[in-house]
């Protein structure tokens, strides 16, 4: 019987990462969708970088930033008296940046597709910008929010390069499912690798299936 802790760790990492991506990604996506600043394309390009960069490159720079000698690593160590790299928190930081575009892009495009007239109508009905955001823009962007959330979750479940660079391979702390599979293959334990792989495959499939079923229902109800 395989040790299930890598799978559970992957799920925990994905949930925590998705939570923070929503927390910071929603306001950021909103800002991107309304800003008229000329640097917007540059910011969008930076956000999209993790899509095209090799995960090891991203992982390398994050490691430099959060390692003991990196600027953020130092601050973290002073504040919490523990190392940020090779810890679960470090993994969350790495995953956050790695999955950022997968959360922000669908949410931003959902925000952008909300009819401007509906927003103006809400204003003329006396509702503040924040209330309009909460009661009109967010509900109408439901599809983009769900897509962003699911992609963040699934993408974090499947990451390998960034996790390995930032977190290493510490059982119970940073050894996630994708790394466990690699370990099993290295040890020529194909059965173990197979079980982990199958579980990951099933989780990914179920999550995607849920999205497509949901989207079908949304399309029908409109």
């Amino acid at each position, binding site marked *: 019987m395989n040790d299930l802790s890598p799978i559970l760790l992957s799920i925990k990492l994905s949930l925590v990462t998705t939570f923070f991506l929503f927390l910071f990604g929603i306001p950021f996506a909103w800002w991107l969708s309304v800003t008229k600043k000329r640097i917007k394309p540059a910011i969008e390009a930076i956000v999209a970088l993790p899509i095209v960069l090799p995960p090891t490159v991203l992982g390398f720079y994050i490691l430099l930033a959060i390692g003991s000698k990196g600027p953020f690593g130092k601050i973290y160590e002073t504040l919490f008296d523990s190392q940020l790299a090779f810890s679960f928190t470090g993994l969350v930081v790495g995953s956050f940046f790695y999955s950022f575009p997968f959360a922000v892009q669908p949410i931003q495009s959902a925000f952008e597709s909300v*009819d401007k*007239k*509906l927003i*103006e*109508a*809400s*204003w*003329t*009905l*006396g*509702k*503040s910008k924040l209330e309009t955001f909460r*009661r*009109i823009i967010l*509900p*109408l962007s439901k599809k983009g929010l769900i897509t962003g959330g699911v992609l963040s979750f699934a993408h974090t479940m499947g990451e390998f390069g960034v996790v390995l660079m930032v977190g290493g391979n510490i059982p119970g702390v940073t050894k996630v499912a994708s790394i466990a599979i690699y370990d099993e293959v290295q040890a020529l334990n194909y059965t173990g690798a197979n079980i982990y792989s199958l579980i990951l495959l099933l989780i990914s499939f179920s999550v995607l299936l849920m999205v497509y079923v949901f989207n079908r229902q949304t399309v029908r109800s*409109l």
Partner: protein
Amino acid sequence: MNRFEGSFRKTFQGEKGEEFSLDLDFTLPEGKITVIFGPSGSGKSTILRLIAGLDSAHSGYFKSSGETWFSAETGINLPPQERKTGFLFQDLALFPHLTVKGNMNYATNKKTESIRIKELLEMTELTGLEHRYPHELSGGQQQRLALARALVGEPSLLLLDEPFSALDRSVKKRIHEEFLKLHNRFGFTALMVTHDISEAYRLAEHAIILKEGKKVKEGTPEEVFLGKTLSTRIQIPVKVLEMESDEIHTLLTVEEGRRTFRVFVDNDEAQNITIGDEVIVAAKASEALVFKV
């Protein structure tokens, strides 16, 4: 009592990309329906957006009962939320994720009484449809919902941006009647922009003709659209469907509602009329034939 007056100057691009400036001074008679009539691209919608606070002008001001909503000079520019306007958008802007009831409730504030919502739903014949979503309503019902929603918050000024233009004639006529009924009941001041002359003529109590951002005529609909007071004449707004000319006369086939009829005019008069134009056919009442039906 509310009195609205304003003056706007704003340069912007028209539909074909040409630059022109809006330059308009106006007052809106209290409790009356004022209609701004003009071709599309004459800056009509911009006026409404300026009044509602959705757009701002380079210079000018807008006042409601002496309270300044906008003043380019002093920099006062109240946000749309603080201007007591109801806005009826051309494409209605009904919230698709909310039901009829939900759309109406959205417009409420603490002061609104549910009796008002009930009355508005009754008057717009939407009672019984409270749980439907906008896409489950007919075109006419959607229009009436948008109208009712705009009135929930008891706006002191109702702004209408060609809201009835997409409807076919028979539905439009009914909406017009309902709109007038609501106006009689609640007595709000309204400003409507339209490029439909028969609509302007039917609804306006005060009319302004706008051309390329400038006011070219203002007064009662009779004065504005017919050039003079013609109370002893029969006036029918119609649409020109066909034109046939001989050497002296032109025979116009025109449509009013579902009826079509023909009128003769001199070729000189027909010169600036083209097929599709909205025109007013007037005849001396003394020459009218009256039949009992």
